[in-house]
């Protein structure tokens, strides 16, 4: 460490000495001569920066293109539209980038001060200015039209046959709820959350009365009636199963602070805001297994990345999506026990056949693999 610092200090001293010396030299030579010398050096560096920079852009692409998501098709049907848009935008901005950067550094090199050069008095030209107002405006209109068409598809209603899953973020993990056989989510309320009793979402399972403090320091009673829709709701932590080819609509909640359901492989993302449910829908088009083959990565996982700063464990807030076929999904679902029955085993009508259910679960696990 001290060695590194010593080297840095030494470099600084050398630079300082050179800088000082060149300043004395320039005073001796006269300001104008030294200015012209500096012009030559910097003019050359300008054109060198341009050439090496453009090579660098190409080289960077060679190195890292394969590590992005772009070499493989989007894992959702809708994501293909995002990728198309990305390429169109890249084409438009890429052309502008290359032209303007070349002009900038080439002009800087070409029009450096020399003895002969007379600057051209050119304060304005309306025709030119109108051209470079109108042309970008037209290009942007095209991009806006493409973008908004997709935007209204993504934010529009999910297809009618979509399955629905409720996603809830908490510090620092994900919870999922499926509506069960009746296809309806039971009611929930955040004050009923009781992790010890297995009620992670605050589902209204039983007739309950709670006492809530009011603003004047007193309490008021809140009465809840048991919601039968809750009895068959399936709860799953960390891993969400989805079906290949079937649109899915996520209803997104947060339990404590703002989180974000980030789905890079599906090109989708939506915030999870406490007290304000949001929605997101897409159609997975490859199973996890198919993606592992496509990407050549046997460990491939659809990861849910929290994309909104949510606390010190933000970086570890990972969920998993497993995309399977309809049959595999049905087999998995059949072996899920509603959270209600876990919390209240007495209410479970299948209580006695518990042992067979367990065996069934094991075979289902094997099938999935």
């Amino acid at each position, binding site marked *: 460490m001290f060695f590194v610092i010593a080297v840095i200090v030494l470099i600084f001293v050398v630079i300082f000495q050179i800088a000082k010396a060149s300043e004395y030299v320039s005073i001796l030579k006269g300001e104008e001569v030294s200015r012209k010398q500096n012009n030559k050096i910097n003019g050359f560096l300008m054109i060198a920066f341009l050439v090496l920079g453009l090579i660098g852009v190409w080289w960077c692409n060679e190195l890292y293109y394969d590590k992005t998501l772009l070499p493989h098709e989007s894992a959702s049907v809708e994501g293909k539209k995002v990728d198309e848009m990305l390429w169109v935008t890249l084409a438009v901005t890429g052309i502008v980038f290359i032209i303007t950067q070349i002009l900038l550094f080439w002009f800087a090199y070409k029009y450096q001060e020399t003895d002969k050069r007379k600057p051209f008095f050119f*304060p304005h030209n309306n025709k030119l200015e109108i051209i470079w107002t109108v042309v970008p405006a037209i290009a942007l209109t095209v991009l806006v039209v493409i973008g908004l068409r997709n935007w209204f598809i993504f934010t529009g209603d999910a297809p009618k046959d979509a399955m629905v899953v409720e996603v809830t973020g908490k510090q620092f993990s994900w919870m999922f709820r499926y509506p069960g056989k009746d296809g309806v989510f039971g009611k929930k309320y955040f004050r009923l959350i009781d992790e010890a009793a297995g009620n992670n979402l605050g589902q209204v399972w039983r007739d309950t009365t709670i006492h809530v403090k009011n603003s004047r320091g007193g309490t008021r009673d809140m009465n809840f009636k048991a919601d039968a829709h809750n009895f068959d709701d399936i709860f799953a932590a960390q891993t969400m199963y989805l079906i290949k080819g079937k649109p899915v609509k996520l209803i997104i909640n947060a339990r404590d602070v703002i989180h974000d359901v*980030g789905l890079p492989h599906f090109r989708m993302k939506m915030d999870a*805001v406490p007290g304000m449910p949001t929605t997101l829908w897409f159609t997975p088009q490859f199973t996890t297994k198919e993606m592992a083959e496509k990407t050549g990565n046997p460990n491939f996982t659809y990861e849910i990345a929290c994309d909104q700063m949510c606390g010190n464990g933000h970086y570890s807030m990972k969920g998993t999506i497993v995309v399977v076929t309809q049959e595999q999904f049905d087999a998995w679902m059949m072996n899920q026990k509603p959270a209600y029955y876990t919390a209240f085993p007495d209410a479970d009508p299948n209580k006695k056949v518990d042992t067979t259910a367990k065996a069934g679960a094991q075979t289902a696990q094997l099938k999935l693999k």
Partner: protein
Amino acid sequence: MDHKMIAKQFLITGMVWAIIGGLMSVLFRFQLGYPEAEFHWMKDLLGKWVNDKGQITAESYYSLVTIHGTVLVFFVLTAGLSGTFANLLIPLQVGARDMASPMLNMLSYWFFLAASLVMLSSIFVETGPFSGGWTAYPPLSALASAQPGSGVGMDLWLIAMALFVVSSLLGGLNYIATILNMRTKGMSMTRMPLTIWALFFTAILGVLSFPVLLSGFILLIFDRNFGTSFYLSDIFIATNNVGALPNEGGNAVLYQHLFWFLGHPEVYIIILPAMGMVSEVMAVNSRKPIFGYMAMIGSLFAITVLAFLVWAHHMFVTGLNPFLGSIFVLLTLLIAVPSAIKVFNWLTTIWRGSIRFTPGMLFAIGFVSLFISGGLTGIWLGNSALDIHLHDTYFVIAHFHIVMGVAGMFGMFCGIYHWYPKMYGRYMNNTMGYIHFWVTMIGAYLIFWPMHYEGLAGMPRRYYDYSQWESFKQFIELNKFISLVAMIVFAVQLLFLFNFFYSIFKGRRVRSQNPWGATTLEWTTPINPGHGNWVGEIPEVHRWAYDYGKDGQEFIPQTTPVGANETNHH
């Protein structure tokens, strides 16, 4: 109370913060590049910010990124940039002896210093400084039970920011009043240099949008301390058996609207003064008038108006009403038009010029290059459907660091090198300036260009460690490289600092009143102007600020009366 002294105070305080903020970025880049490395010497230096193995903890990592963002955006690029150059240049370039209210001006600095001290003190409190990201979204920022940094650290953060808002309002009102009322005889609005126009629009932006931020902060203070529920609803905290909170009926997204109503104009508060100075320095050193003076003012005006109408493009994935989102897409991409006009006008300004590569000019050219690169990725992010995918990834980091962070710094360097002779009566060393420019320019691209690729892999921002993620761990080598370059670039900024302070005392003396051959009024003052700027009468202005290379003359100062035979007079 002299405006030139206040400018220097702003600049030097800003530089102190730039060093602190820069050092913070070096530390967290250390973590990102070398997450496994153990550095025990850091333990001695940083105490509990480092764990027993000598690695930066997650908590301190988040504190570092949060304070880095806050101080760089507000203390360096707002106070350090427009605070410095508005104070220095407005009276000198419009021909006034001082600001409209020197007293308010001085208070503006002292409020800034108070804000600085409070922010600095927050770094040393027991529970650590605020660590929920510089945008401070509630509920995270409202609840100490959600994150330790949201305790006392956040209280201090909010107090510091409130003081800062007061400082920038006092400053802004003063700048507007001075520009409107204190121009010298003959200095009509359309004869003002573009620096003054840019600072004028910057001040308007600040005065109209900072109060909204303050209102957002006040509601947050209420939610934190007085039991209100503006932003809080339906919250259950599992840690420490806190359980369900009593708050109901608030909306966390409300804060984001209030925050970004300033937060977006803020990026123009940073970039407009830089644009103004770049325009001026480019014209002077190309020995040519700025191309399309009126179009430049028009585009500044358009950017100012649009800046107020695009804030929700930071919120495309918050569950925003899709129709509202579409309006914000349209208005956001509209900003690309005035931005394009400015870029093309700068290109035409250097076209067929006679360019002198002073360090100031180099930074001006670098600014344009960065503004193009970062501005174009704004077109990607402003288009909501594409933003869904790229939102909160490293693509965003790359975008705003290039277009606002580094470009803003380049504008600042450009201004410092160019007006240093006016501030201290000496030159900064050229050779060190050239090394500073080229290393920073190359380094900035090496750091931020590859980050676009990380973003295209969906790699999220604000992650302490990526090694557990199948989707993002492929970039560990790249992160090492970026961290290494960041450290080199930081070291070169120390060279700049050395050059700056050394030259105050030992720099080459300025011998000529007008060392760059510029037309504007500040170069008609004595080499070391005293209080009141001009000895005797304030000069009268007869022409615009850009008569370079006209009628075969190298330049014609603004104070020269119009000759009888002059062509196309402005």
